[in-house]
């Protein structure tokens, strides 16, 4: 494993073993997160972004579990790591923030205590008073005004933006090497979104922390990410640097995604939407999962799964088109 990679996911398969069949939510994902970079993971709802993140954090719930593959964090293999060892890393060396700041904080506990818990469980402070001081410092750091007062607030007493800041404080308080942010701004309005993104970017620059940013907002990706992975039906279909992906999108799905982005001042009469719907993960065929919605689909696409192939420098795409085109 290369020294400057914080996380390396190789051929990860995570599935839900339900009564009606096996749902392959993550179906062979490769993903690398270098140190100090912000990596975007985009894709439609239900394509398995959260499940990829939860696989890393060991948060998959019955009937879901990691089937195979490898997740290397720093120098540790996380797949098959005993629970106890994984817990030492979670919230400490790597942490996660969630989409809904409304529901991801415990409604019956004071927010200060919830952040404090992360410090105490990893032994970053001996006494509660000491931990409280760390919490207040962190509150100030993430831009929560009147920290002392907010410390003893309950989540419902805070605005959505403040709650997400509390979540960030909780995730950052042990100075992790990797922060997984699962749609951290989807529930917030645009000004607050910009502030939160700025805050995460600042953390990344100042502390050398890496961020895996999950989103379906390509605008956000363009703004703060260094590298992007595009996911579709449990697989990575394209990856590349932000410039490459935005300037030369290779995969038809990525093109569709970019095409369906509203452009300010653009002359589109209506907003483009990729035709069709996400395939049922229970009934995936042998071929490319996107072929049912792809304008350029050929017979071959329905029968065979294309490999992820280089189409440029540090730019990969999973499509047969490139072979014929190139």
């Amino acid at each position, binding site marked *: 494993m290369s020294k400057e990679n914080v996380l390396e996911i190789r051929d990860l398969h995570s599935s839900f073993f339900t009564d009606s069949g096996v749902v392959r939510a993550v179906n062979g994902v490769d993903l690398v997160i270098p140190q100090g970079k912000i990596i975007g993971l985009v894709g439609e709802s239900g394509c398995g972004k959260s499940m990829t993140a939860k696989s890393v*954090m060991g948060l998959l719930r019955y009937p879901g579990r990691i089937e195979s593959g490898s997740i290397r964090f720093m120098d540790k293999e996380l797949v098959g790591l005993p629970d106890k060892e994984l817990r030492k890393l*979670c919230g400490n060396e790597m942490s996660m923030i969630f989409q809904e700041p409304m529901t991801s904080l415990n409604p019956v*506990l004071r927010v200060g205590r919830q952040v404090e818990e992360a410090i105490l*469980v990893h032994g970053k402070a001996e006494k509660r008073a000491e931990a409280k001081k760390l919490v207040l410092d962190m509150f100030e750091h993430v831009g929560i005004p009147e920290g002392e007062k907010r410390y003893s607030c309950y989540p419902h007493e805070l605005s959505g933006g403040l709650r997400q800041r509390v979540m960030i404080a909780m995730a950052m308080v042990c100075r992790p090497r990797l922060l997984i942010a699962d749609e951290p701004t989807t529930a917030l309005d645009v000004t607050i979104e910009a502030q939160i993104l700025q805050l995460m970017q600042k953390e990344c620059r100042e502390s050398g922390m890496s961020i895996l940013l999950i989103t379906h907002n390509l605008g956000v990706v363009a703004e703060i990410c260094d590298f992007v992975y595009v996911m579709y039906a449990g697989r990575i279909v394209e990856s590349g640097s932000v410039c490459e992906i935005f300037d030369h999108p290779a995969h038809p799905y990525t093109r569709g995604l970019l095409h369906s982005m509203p452009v300010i001042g653009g002359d589109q009469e209506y907003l483009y939407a990729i035709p069709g719907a996400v395939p049922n993960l229970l009934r995936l065929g042998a071929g490319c999962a996107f072929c049912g919605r792809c304008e350029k689909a050929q017979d071959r696409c329905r029968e065979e799964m294309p490999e992820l192939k280089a189409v440029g420098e540090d730019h990969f795409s999973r499509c047969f088109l490139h072979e014929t085109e190139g």
Partner: protein
Amino acid sequence: MKRVLKRLLSMIPVLLGVMLLIFIMLRIIPGDPVSILLGEHYSQDTIDRLTKAMNLDKPLMQQFFSYVLGVLHGDLGVSYIMKRPVTDIILQAFPHTVKLAVMAALFAWVIGLLTGIVAAVTQNRPPDRIFMTLSLAGVSVPIFMVALALQYFLAFKVKLFPLTSDGSLKSMILPAIALGWNSAGSIARMTRSSLIEVMQSDYIDTARAKGLRRGAVIFGHALKNAMLPVITMMALQLSSMMSGAVITESVFSIPGIGRLATDAVQNRDMPLLQGTILFTTVIVILGNLLADFLYAVLDPRIRREA
């Protein structure tokens, strides 16, 4: 504080309503209290005198108001049969019922919570299946059957416990189990489903992502949230608990409020019956108030609303 006061004040119309209801009901049911008291062979003169003494010759409305006035002074009238103030009789019986109820509640909550939690964390595996089958028996077997079965097997056959209560703690164990049995079952089932639901919440993911141990997640984060519906349910069940106390006290001859009520019904002892029903109503209302209070302690969202 203001909230508690408000709730206490809102008790007044409820109590007045209950008083009126009991009052009317006891006048409708057949059986003249005077002839019950005297038996059959008395002169009309005696009957009239007694009727007057008991205020039964006055118009119903007036009887009711003098009763309410008495209640306000803590005077619930005099028992026809025992010839003693009803207030005294009830206060004497009350501690027995309290002891029974507290022990039953303790049994119900400890057993219910433990099995509910174990069932929830072993969801759909053998411990869960066993406990849920047991708790189904808990909620569906009628209380008199539980009471009689416990008495027959553990007291009569095995002689582990005394047959009837003598006021000692040991003699209260079987009655407490009998009375708490149904509640233990409901608490277990409700705790299980509530905890399973809470464990699906986003904030449980947050807690786990922090690196907390499973136990810390369950007891520190999930349980408090999971308890809220259980408390509400128990408050609603308080009145059926009270009727359970009537049965339990009869089976084990405990001289509590429930026994007083059965005796009062058998003897047509109206003042005593009125008194016990009124007293029970107050207890149920206070119990609900306590549940509300507990709910507010657990849930900050409710607390601030008041």
